[in-house]
């Protein structure tokens, strides 16, 4: 069973504010679903299987062994047509001229 405190802790990480009622319901639902997930403990994992590309030592070697190719590109923005840029700015809830306003983060 997942505790109330855990639900609240996770909700903070997830940037969700849950009401008291939501916390109780979430506690019940998550417990039930994670209980089902425990089925995975029964699964025997095998050698080569160890994952696509996450969390592995010798990442490169592992990736090559399962046929993964890197597709990174240069971190460079393609310029957009002005009407599109205008629309993107227009979509922001709070803006000034061609800038999106964000509250102070400190």
């Amino acid at each position, binding site marked *: 069973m997942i505790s109330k405190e855990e639900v609240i802790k996770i909700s903070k990480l997830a940037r969700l504010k849950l009401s008291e009622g939501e916390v109780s319901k979430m506690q019940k639902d998550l417990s039930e679903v994670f209980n089902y997930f425990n089925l995975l403990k029964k699964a025997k994992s095998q050698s080569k299987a160890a994952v696509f590309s996450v969390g592995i030592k010798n990442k490169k070697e592992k990736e090559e062994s399962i046929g993964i190719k890197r597709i990174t*590109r240069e971190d460079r923005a393609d310029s957009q047509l002005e009407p599109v840029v205008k629309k993107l700015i227009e979509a922001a809830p709070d803006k000034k001229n061609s800038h*999106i306003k964000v509250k102070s983060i400190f």
Partner: protein
Amino acid sequence: MSVQKQFLTINDIKKGLLEKRFSALEVTKNYLKRIKEKDEEINAFLVRTEELALSQAKEIDKLVSEGKKLPVLAGAPCAVKDIILIKDIKCTAGSKILENYIAPYDATVIKKLKDSGAVILGKTNLDEFGMGSSTENSAFKITKNPHDLSRVPGGSSGGSAAAVAADECCYALGSDTGGSIRLPASFCGVVGFKPTYGAVSRYGLIAFASSLDQVGPLAKSVEDAKIIFDVISGKDKMDSTSAEVKWPKSDYSLKNLKIGVPKEYFIKGIDPEVKKIIKETIKKAEEQGAKIEEISLPYTEYALAAFYIIAPSEASANLARYDGIKYGLSENEKGGILDVYLGTRSKGLGQEVKRRIMLGTYSLSSGYYDAYYLKAQEIRNLIKEDFEKAFDKIDLIFTPVSPTTAFKIGEKTEDPLSMYLSDVFTVTANLAGLPAVSLPCGKIDNLPVGIQIIGKPFFDYQLLQAASFIEKLSL
């Protein structure tokens, strides 16, 4: 006016236009009228794009009158799941958080449809952000199954499937992360096709789980699904996961087809009537010369758990963008930026979306990452290997789409796990990136049953070819 015949296909419409039996404008008006009449009870549409549809139809009529060559989708009116962007049209993803969001550009699939002469009638209802199996998780309305209004159409592309089944459009686009095209296609008795991962660009598809999402057609025939797939597939520089495909050239014939039937998909929990109809369809294929072989995909039993860890994990990251700053709803509360985030997300996101973000955040959190996320990724790879081994010996895999026919509205909304279990037979194709089609093959008390055919990666055309053989057997 002779467009009274039910269920016009894409080619029927094109032929009618060329023979000048009707105009594109007449066809479009006819569908708009039908939506007006039918959608009061079906609730398939969230937004109707009447103006856009009429102007597109007029363009086609102009081509006809000038005697120019008609593009492949000419004048065939379609609907689009409201999670795919159409420039200058609202796109809500079924969520309050995007209730007033206007798409600033066309998704690549929409651009391709428009370039091929499509007429777009409107945007269809869905489970919020594609998260659900019944379309009941929409923030706006409950879509009804056209075959029985007390039942769900399936989800998450429920609006698209219901619109096609009720003939409120000729065909529709949907998206499929764990069965979201195939399940509603099965429940509503239409053809639903999820292409190979990478076959179709997702640029302009609102992201749910990026290693699983794929766009595909819902249609009245396999032939139509193929025509639409032909239009929307292809490499796109705006989606780095889209593939440059050298389509395999081989042809399938029913006589030489080797069909695998995995025993893990016919276990207890499946409605015996559904099982019977699927087995009968397989038998018919065998009578036509196909070779049927029982196979085993041993990791199937873990697929659903792995899926419901991986998809919510990716969703928890993808949905972090809804922060009340860049677009969509903003609860600009007093206080700091964190208050904006929390206020916006609490008000704008529905219960199921919050649940999935929590599931994902929990699975990825330190202390649980190894036991859940990493383990799920391992299982994913083992499932993929299961399929690879099976496809050494066989061409295609036949399974049910769902253990049951369409369930009652409200039946599963209070129990998330029972809702998740509706996807038990469809998630594997997403986890392994395989193409899969749902094809109507029978009915139980007026409720459609679908058979799922899973193919090898990038054998999409061969899969559809085989599906069309089976479609003819089921008629």
